[in-house]
């Protein structure tokens, strides 16, 4: 185990944020958000990783077997569910924006308000 996963996590976060800052398309914006989000998955899994350890399932292996941390895996799963909800909601809003206002550019939408 080395520092590489942490670098990957930080990189995903930075490119995700960069993409959100420069985005001109709502779908692109949502995808960038999910890229930034995936950095937390990598981070959480990296935190719980152990060299040479097995999956945390004890049915077919003795209870003394070293396993990776199951808690961060459940956290990641929960997080995936939460973020799928957010992405679905944002994409639904994007569909509404396109249907009613004929644009998917967040700046054009901003110019339309009031």
């Amino acid at each position, binding site marked *: 185990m080395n520092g590489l996963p942490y670098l990957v*996590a930080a990189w995903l*976060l930075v490119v995700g*944020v960069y993409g*959100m*800052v*420069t*985005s001109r398309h*709502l779908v692109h*914006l949502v995808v960038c*958000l999910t890229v*930034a*989000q995936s*950095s*937390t998955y990598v*981070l*959480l899994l990296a*935190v719980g990783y152990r060299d040479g350890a097995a999956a945390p399932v004890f049915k077919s292996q003795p209870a003394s077997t070293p396993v990776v941390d199951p*808690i*961060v895996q459940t*956290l990641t799963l*929960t*997080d995936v569910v*939460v*973020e799928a*909800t*957010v992405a679905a*909601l*944002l994409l639904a*809003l*994007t569909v*509404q*924006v396109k249907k*009613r*206002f004929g644009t998917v550019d*967040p*700046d054009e*939408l*901003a*110019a*339309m*308000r*009031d």
Partner: protein
Amino acid sequence: MTVASLAILVPLLAAALVAGVRTSIGRAAGEALAVTAAAATAALCAVLVVRAGGPLDVLWLGGWAPVDGMPVGIALTPDVMGGGMALFSALLAVVALLSSRRLTEAADPLFHALVLVLLAAMVGFCLGADLFTLFVFFELMSVCAYALVALRSAEPSPLQGGVNFAITNSLGAILLLFGVGLLYGRTGALNLARIGDVLSAQGPPDALVVVAFALVAGGLLVKAAVVPFHFWLADAYAAASSPVCLLLAGAFTELGLFGLVRVYWNVFAEPFAGHEGAVRVVFVVLGLATALVGAMMALEQRHLRRMLAFVTTSTIGISLAAIGLLEAHALAGAMVWALADGCAKAALFVGVGALERRFGTIDAGELHGRGRDMPFTGAAFAVAGLAIAGLPPLGPFWGKGLVDHGAELVPGFAWLPWAIAVPSLLIGAAVLRAGAGIFVGIGEPPRVDPSTREAREEPEPPEGRDPILTAAALLLTLAAVGLGAAPGLLDATLTAAAAALDTEAVHAAVLFGAQVTPAELGAPFPSALAWAIGILSACAAAVVAWIALLGAARSNAPAPARSAMQAMRDLHSGHVGDYVLWLAAGFVALGGALLAGLT
């Protein structure tokens, strides 16, 4: 101790029920069901608050209590502070549900279900005692709030406000979760008390712990809309309907600060011992900056709900500056202030909703003088404005008095009462000016910008006055005014604040089941200085409102002041990319400042 779990389950199950049967029982029955569920939640929370007077009664879900101080299960800690916030949220949810039929033109039956899920998440957030539970409820309430803001999707601004709200807050939540991951990696724990114990056993904080704190605190401050994370709030609240706004402005935003209090004192207070000075400076500076930016932007607005959104930002800043003193009296003061001015803001949102229902617009210029026959709503505006400005002996003043007392106890911060009087008099002035223009017709109507004029449809014909809405606005104002007079409220708040700050006692109760009864404290009577500041700032608010009404300030202001205001307006551009950039820069600055001060 099943009351705590019921307080989360009742609104959640009722939401599923309301959503499931909404087509077959009709809107009125759905509304009645939702109001009943919210009221039942409020009753359960009230039971929690009453019971929380004794030793902290920790609930371990499924009976997974810690062994030898090593927690594995999930805990709920219904203390007075958390229970009180939950109770306040539930009461505001009842008001929002009751007023929804009169204030939302889009009769969407899913509205009630969303409000109930939001309420369940807020209660869960108030009671949660581990980082991941806090994160999950934090995200659940955010998702409901995004949907509630964007519900009126027939217009561009709710969609735009909803998208900006969702993008910035989701990014904040991602960074918060990043911090949670770092803390778990360092301590192997998610329970707040356990993380705190492990961290303080590891000695003075290193860079990783400080960065984790910056990420968690920053994520919560995005929710609380603290400068420079505040941009989403005005877009979202300006676009949402009034019932949604009163719930979000009164409770949801405050919960960001509540989370910060929970996390700071349960996790970081002990490891950061000896570095309080640096934490104080960071939070007080952030709070004052937020309060000032919000106040100046509020004075600028013609759109009434946008104005109230900036008033909310400003009041959050004042609360953060008070909490940042890291002192029990100041924390209690921030809590009283949050309650009293939450009621005042709710009254103002109901009043604005009544204006919108009647005249079809909430532009201060178009409404100028048209509210002359609505004396009670006008009175609610006037009293709420004076209360927010800190006029004694109205409710918010008692909170300020406690904060002033706390500031005297912290060396080097005796000037803070004066500093927080400035933004509060400015937001008071913003409310008073709007009220005097609309309900009395004083001064020239603000100039109408032709570009916005064209875009808007012709105003709808006025409807009749709505006595129920007037009564609701008056009742909420009365609650804001009378809060300080509620017997024992100040003492109970101070006791609760001191108990929340007693990290050792909380850890002993959570990890080892210790039964510690918090000592009863008596709140000091506000000092003569606090009375003087309160009266002065209320008078100054009236003067500023008068000057602004006569339109003198804008034309006579010196050029640098005008260009500074223009620059600040331009910053609130509505471009979500800019908001994300500010958010990222804010996180870097917050982390840098904390690293410089703490390591």
